[in-house]
């Protein structure tokens, strides 16, 4: 009886957004009387950082400090429509909608400022610190707050913008199946090391080395957080999480957290992550979506590592000790693939 070490590799192409497209998201941006901006979305932030990233995108596009932007995702009944927070689509789809809305609002803001400064709006630039000034002449300036208030109280303008991002639903040729499934791919590659106990069938992931290509990482800390947690979830899907088996019948299936197993803080693997940035042509400031693809390469890499370690090929997830032991028994024991 022994513990066998194995190494496995996997690489993925991960499509951003709904397959075939047809998944719009909208954004509305408006200035408030205090010169700050509200971005209204129905895109829900469930901890992945949607509000932070759309806030950054709006501030960058408007040309105002990020502190001057508030993202409101409070109510999907009254907010502009969004297809949802899934398919790793939030940053890409919603971000593009926010850019469109913020551009429209920025144009009105500059028109309002131009009227106050008695210049052409085309000659105005923002400094990102709350000021609008004539290009090359920083002294001829007005604050974004003053411009927004002039629009509101003197000029009677709404400093606001509408945005939608839609990749139209791709037709599928009924004869050939030809289609355009996706406009934007993220990529990842991962090497994992495992230890397989040929007596208990237990598999432990001992190390992960990964490279994730995410377009531009708009918020590198959030991307890193997502990749760290998501890869853990991939490890969990690979080896732990299931509502099966149930012996002798379904009535005995796990129904709560005490029987639904996930790796705890004592079951972690070291994980070195390299984030590669290759800005996407159709992404907001080049961003793709790190949402789900962080978990995806872990599963095939773990399966390959187990095969490498003991020669058991399990193609049914998760790879529980029971499945490993059945595989070992079927082939008469461990057969490490590596020699020497």
């Amino acid at each position, binding site marked *: 009886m022994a513990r066998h070490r194995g190494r496995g590799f996997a690489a993925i192409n991960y499509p951003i957004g709904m397959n075939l497209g047809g998944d719009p998201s909208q954004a509305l941006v408006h200035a408030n009387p205090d010169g700050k901006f509200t971005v209204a979305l129905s895109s829900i932030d*469930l*901890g*992945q*950082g949607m509000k932070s990233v759309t806030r950054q995108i709006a501030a960058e596009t408007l040309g105002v400090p990020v502190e001057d932007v508030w993202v409101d995702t409070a109510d999907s009944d009254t907010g502009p429509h969004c297809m949802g927070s899934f398919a790793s689509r939030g940053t890409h789809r919603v971000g593009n909608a926010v850019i469109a809305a913020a551009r429209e609002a920025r144009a009105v803001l500059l028109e309002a400022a131009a009227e106050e400064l008695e210049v052409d709006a085309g000659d105005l630039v923002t400094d990102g610190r709350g000021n609008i000034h004539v290009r090359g002449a920083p002294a001829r300036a007005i604050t974004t707050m003053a411009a927004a208030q002039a629009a509101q109280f003197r000029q009677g303008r709404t400093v606001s913008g509408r945005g939608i991002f839609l990749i139209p639903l791709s037709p599928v040729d009924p004869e050939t199946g030809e289609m355009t499934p996706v406009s934007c791919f993220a990529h990842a590659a991962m090497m994992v090391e495992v230890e397989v106990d040929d007596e208990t069938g237990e598999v432990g992931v001992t190390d992960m080395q990964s490279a994730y290509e995410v377009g531009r990482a708009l918020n590198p*800390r*959030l991307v*890193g*957080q997502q990749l*760290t*947690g*998501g*890869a*853990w*979830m991939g490890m969990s899907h690979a080896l732990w999480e299931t509502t099966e088996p149930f012996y002798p019948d379904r009535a005995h299936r796990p129904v*709560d*957290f*005490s029987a639904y197993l*996930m790796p*705890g*803080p*004592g079951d*972690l693997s070291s*994980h070195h992550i390299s984030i590669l940035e290759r800005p996407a042509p159709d992404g907001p400031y080049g961003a793709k979506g790190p949402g789900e693809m962080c978990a995806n390469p872990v599963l095939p890499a773990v399966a390959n590592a187990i095969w490498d370690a003991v020669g058991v090929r399990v193609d049914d997830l998760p790879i529980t000790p029971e499945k490993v032991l059945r595989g070992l028994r079927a082939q008469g024991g461990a057969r490490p693939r590596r020699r020497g």
Partner: protein
Amino acid sequence: MALKPVALTLNGSERAAFTEDGENLLDFLRRRLGDLSPKFGCGQGACGACTVLLDGAPVLACLILAETAAGRRIETAAGLAGAALHPLQRAFVEGFAAQCGYCTPGMLMAAVALLRANPRPTREEVVAAIGGNLCRCTGYEPIIAAVLDAAGHMERRA
């Protein structure tokens, strides 16, 4: 059903409310005293989201009858911050140790209890202290790092 008064100390304040037979401490804190920081996760002591300190010791509020807390000292995540965030809270923020945030109050209280008893924990001791708290988002590593980071800060300040 008979209502019974329960008085206890919550985050340093004397508080009292009526409880029903069989009501657990978690429901009592949330519904009767309005402290929403301890979370309901599983209701059976499997997830740690409801972790609070009872006379300084971490307990699962969903498994404690409210009546048994009468006259005792309860601490929750809502009482951690004074004028500034507690060093653990600050370390969680700076270390991106929360995503959806649902496990965070329980994680914080488990960590508070650890650092009071053991101001210089090893990584293994941190893992053991939060071993009963489930997190779905972070993969635990940022939480472990934040607790160790806070321990370092608290020791340098002491």
